[in-house]
C-alpha cells in the first residue's frame, strides 16, 4: 500500500465505484482456463465437500462428496477430480516448440501453451495445496490402494500451488488477488477478500452502485461465500439434513440429487462471477512483459511435465539447498516482476515517482552531441535537463534508465529546484553521434527511474551432496514409504 493506492480507495468511495490501479493487464489470462471453485467441510483441514470445475463457462462439472466423512467417497472424489484436472493438463499444453540447443548441447523444447487454473481466492489456493499434500503420497497398491490418478493429481496440485508463490506466475491465479492488482475499491482489503463484494465494486449489477452491490454480496443467502469455507447457516440448515438424508437413502437416491442441487446452488453464483471476472481482465490491454513471464511459466511447466515420470512426489519439507535456491528464485522473481510492472504501466511507475525512485517531466534543455573528452578516447555523453514536479529522492551519481526505453541509461549530475540534469551514458548506438530518435528532444515528456529489470543476479548453491554442516549436512535421499501412503485421512 502507498498513498497512491490509498488515494485511489478514497476516490472509489467518493465515486461509489472501483478505480483503476493499472492501465494494462499484468497477468496472463488463457482462452480456456480451468476454473475451480472448491468447497470444504467446516472444521476439517482439507476434507473436500464439492468442486465446480471446467474450462467452459456453459459446461461446469460438479463433483460432490455426499458424505464428507467417508474415506472411500473422498478418494472416489479425488479420482474424479484427477480425471478432470489431468485431462485439462494434457489437452491444453499445445504443440511442442523446438528451441535452439542449450550451451551444453542438450536439446530444449517448450510447450506452446500451458494450463492455467483459476480459483476464487487465496483460500482456494490453500485448499488445492492441502488437497495436493493429502493425495500425493497415496499408494496405488496394497491395503489402502487408491486410483492410480490420485497421487498424480496430488503432485500436480502441489506443483501448481508452489508456482502460485512465484511472483508474476499466472499458472494458478486467485481471482480476488488478480482483481485487486488492477482495481481499488472503497472497502478494506478484508472485504476485498469476498469475490462477490469485490466484483460488486468493479462491475455492479444493473441498477446498483458499488457500496450497494457489496452490501448485497455480504448476504450469504443472495451471494453464497466463494469457498472453500461454507456459510455456517447453510451448513446447519441445509447441508447437515441433506447429508443425513443421504446416509439413510444411499447412493443414487433422490436424497443424493437434492444434496447435489443444494451444493450447486452454493457454487453457481461464484462460478458465474469467475468467468465475468476473467472477461474483465481480458478486456484490459496486455502489459508488454506479460508474454515473457508466461513464457517462463511455460518453461517451468514443460520441465515438470517432461520429468514427471522420473521424479518422486514433492517432499514434505524441502531439503536445505533446495529451500535456499527456491527462496532465492522467489526473491529474483519478485524483483523482476516489480520492475517489469512499473515499466509496463505508467500508473505503477507513478508509485515509484511518488516514492522518489523515479521522476517524470518535460525536457527543457538538451545537448545531444556532447562528448566527454577527458579520457583517451572521446565518449558520447549527451546532457539532458528535465523539469519535474516529482519529489525526487535520488542522489547525484545514481544510475537511471528511461522508463519508455530502458536501454537508454544515464547518470544524475545535479538536482535543483525542480530540474534534474542527466548525463546519458548508453543506449544511443555505437557512434559519436546518437542514433536518430535515441535522445529525447526539448519538449518531450520523459520518465527516468532507478529501477532495473534483471539486476538481481543468479546465485550459486552447492549440490545436495555438498550441503554444509551448518545446514545439517547432506540430507538423506527421500524415498516415499508405506507410512506416507497409510496416513489417516479422517
Amino acid at each position, binding site marked *: *500500500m*502507498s*498513498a*497512491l*493506492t*490509498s*488515494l*485511489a*480507495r*478514497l*476516490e472509489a*468511495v*467518493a465515486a461509489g465505484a472501483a478505480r*483503476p490501479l493499472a*492501465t494494462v493487464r499484468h497477468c496472463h489470462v488463457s482462452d480456456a482456463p480451468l476454473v475451480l471453485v472448491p468447497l470444504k*467441510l*467446516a*472444521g*476439517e*483441514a*482439507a476434507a473436500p465437500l464439492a468442486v465446480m470445475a471446467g474450462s467452459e463457462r456453459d459446461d461446469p462439472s460438479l463433483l460432490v462428496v455426499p458424505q*464428507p466423512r467417508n474415506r472411500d467417497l473422498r478418494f472416489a472424489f479425488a479420482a474424479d477430480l484427477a480425471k478432470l484436472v489431468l485431462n485439462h493438463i494434457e489437452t491444453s499444453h499445445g504443440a511442442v516448440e523446438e528451441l535452439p540447443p542449450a550451451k551444453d548441447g542438450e536439446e530444449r523444447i517448450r510447450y506452446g501453451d500451458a494450463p492455467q487454473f483459476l480459483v476464487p481466492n487465496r483460500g482456494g489456493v*490453500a485448499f488445492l495445496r*492441502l488437497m495436493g*499434500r*493429502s493425495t500425493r503420497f497415496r499408494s496405488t497398491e496394497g491395503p489402502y490402494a487408491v486410483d492410480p490418478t490420485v497421487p498424480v493429481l496430488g503432485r500436480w496440485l502441489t506443483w501448481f500451488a508452489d508456482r502460485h508463490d512465484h511472483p508474476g506466475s499466472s499458472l494458478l491465479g486467485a481471482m480476488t488477488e488478480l482483481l485487486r492488482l488492477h482495481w481499488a475499491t*472503497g*472497502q*478494506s*482489503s*478484508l*472485504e476485498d477478500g469476498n469475490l462477490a463484494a469485490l466484483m460488486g465494486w468493479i462491475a455492479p449489477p444493473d441498477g446498483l452502485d458499488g*457500496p450497494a452491490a457489496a452490501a448485497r454480496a455480504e448476504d450469504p443467502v443472495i451471494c453464497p461465500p466463494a469457498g472453500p469455507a*461454507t*456459510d*455456517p*447457516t447453510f*451448513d*446447519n440448515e441445509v*447441508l*447437515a439434513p441433506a447429508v443425513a438424508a443421504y446416509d439413510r437413502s444411499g447412493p443414487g437416491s433422490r436424497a443424493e440429487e437434492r444434496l447435489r442441487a443444494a451444493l450447486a446452488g452454493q457454487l453457481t453464483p461464484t462460478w458465474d462471477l469467475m468467468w465475468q471476472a476473467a472477461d474483465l481482465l481480458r478486456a484490459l490491454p496486455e502489459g508488454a512483459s506479460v508474454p515473457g513471464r508466461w513464457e517462463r511459466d511455460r518453461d517451468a511447466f514443460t520441465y515438470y511435465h517432461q520429468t514427471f515420470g522420473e521424479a518422486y512426489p514433492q517432499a*514434505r*519439507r524441502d531439503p536445505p539447498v533446495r529451500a535456499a535456491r527456491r527462496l532465492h528464485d522467489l526473491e529474483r522473481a519478485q524483483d523482476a516482476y516489480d520492475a517489469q510492472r512499473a515499466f509496463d*504501466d*505508467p*500508473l505503477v*511507475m*507513478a508509485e515509484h*515517482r*511518488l516514492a522518489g525512485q523515479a521522476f*517524470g517531466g518535460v525536457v527543457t534543455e538538451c545537448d545531444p552531441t556532447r562528448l566527454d573528452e577527458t579520457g583517451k578516447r572521446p565518449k558520447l555523453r549527451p546532457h539532458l535537463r528535465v523539469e519535474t*514536479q*516529482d*519529489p525526487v529522492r535520488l542522489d547525484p551519481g545514481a544510475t537511471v534508465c528511461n522508463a519508455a526505453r530502458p536501454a537508454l541509461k544515464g547518470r544524475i549530475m545535479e538536482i535543483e529546484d525542480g530540474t534534474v540534469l542527466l548525463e546519458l551514458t548508453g543506449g544511443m548506438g555505437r557512434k559519436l553521434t546518437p542514433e536518430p530518435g535515441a535522445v529525447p528532444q526539448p519538449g518531450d515528456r520523459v520518465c527516468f527511474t532507478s529501477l532495473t529489470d534483471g539486476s538481481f543476479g543468479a546465485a550459486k548453491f552447492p549440490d545436495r551432496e555438498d550441503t554444509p554442516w551448518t545446514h545439517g549436512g547432506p540430507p538423506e535421499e527421500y524415498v516415499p514409504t508405506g507410512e506416507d501412503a497409510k*496416513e*489417516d*485421512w*479422517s
Partner: protein
Amino acid sequence: MTDTAPDLDRLRGAAPPRNHDARTIAALTSNPGCARRGVMDAAGVDKDAVAQELGFPAPFGQSQFAITRGNAFEAQVKADGCAELLTLLRDGLGLDVPEVAYDDLELVAGNEGRELRHSRTRRLLARALETGEGTLFDHPLLRLEIAGRPAYLEPDVIAFQLAGRLHVIEIKSFAVVDGQAEPEQVAAAARQSAVYVLALRRLVTELGHDPGRVSHEVFLVCPENFSNRPSATPLDVRPQLAVLERQLTRLTRVDAILAELPGDLTFEPGEALGASVRAVEARYAPECMAGCEMALFCRDEARACGETGALGRSVRDDLGGVDTIGTALALADASLTPSDDLAETAAQLQAAARLRAEALQGVA
C-alpha cells in the same frame, strides 16, 4: 472499582452479566482504544443481543460440522482421564510425567456458581503448589482484572503441573500439517493462552507464590496432518504476554469513560438503544470483524461518517492520520488549505493525485 459497579449494572439493564471469553480478551489486545467495546465488556453486556437488536447481527455463526469435530477431538484427547494427552506428553515430548491425578473443576457439587467455582480452583491450585500433588486440572475458572473490573475467564484448557511448575494446555481442532498450521489460528491460540497464563500467574501471586511457577511455555494440542491423532507442540507465549500486560495497564480505565457518559445511559433493548450505543465512542478497524460482535454496526457508523479507518489501518496511516475521507480528498485537490501539521500530508496527497491523473490521462 466498587464505585463503578452500580453504574455498570445499570448499563446492562436487567440482563445477567456475561463472562469474558477468549474472543473478548483477544479483542481487548487488538483494539484497546475502543471505549465502546471497553465499556460493554466491562459491564458484561451481551453484545450479540445488542447488535441483533440494532439490526446488525454478528457474523459469527458456527457450523455444526466444526463444532462436532472440535468436541469429538477434545473428548478423544480427554477420554479415560486424559490418557491420550499423557501419552503425548510422555512419548511425544519426552516429559517425565510421574503419578497422575486428574481434577475436573467444571462443577462444584452440581452448582455452577462462578464464585464457588473460582474458589475451588484457588483451593486446589493452592494445595497443588504447596504439596506438588495433582497433575491435570481441567476447566479452571480464573479471574483477571480488566480495566479495573474483575472478569471471570472460563478457559477450555487444562492446567498441568510438572516439576513444581504449571503449564497451560490448550486443545484446538485445527490441523497441524507437517509441523505447520495456519498462522492466524496459531496466533489466536497463542494470544488466548497468554491470557490464561497471565490469569494463572495472578492467582499464583495471590496465593503467595512466585508467578514464575506458571510457565510461559504452553502446550498446544492439535490433530496431526489429516488424521484425528493428536500432536502436542510447545509454544512460547512470552511475546503475547508482554503485549497483553502492556495493553492491560494502558487500557483506558472504564471509570474515566463512565464519568463522561450521561448518567442514565443504558444498553437495554428499546428505541433508545442505538442512541445509547452511539453515545460511547468506538474506534472501528476492519480487524474488529474477526473478534467483536458489534463490528458490523460500528462499520456502518464509520462508513457513514466517512472515516478513513474503515478502509483499513494502513490506509489511514498512508494518509498521515487524516480521519475523514472528505478531508483527505479536499486536501488532495487543494480545495482545503491544510493546517501546519497537515502540510506535509497535503503535499504528498496532491503529488499522488497529480501523478494518478497524469498516468490515467492516456487511458481515459
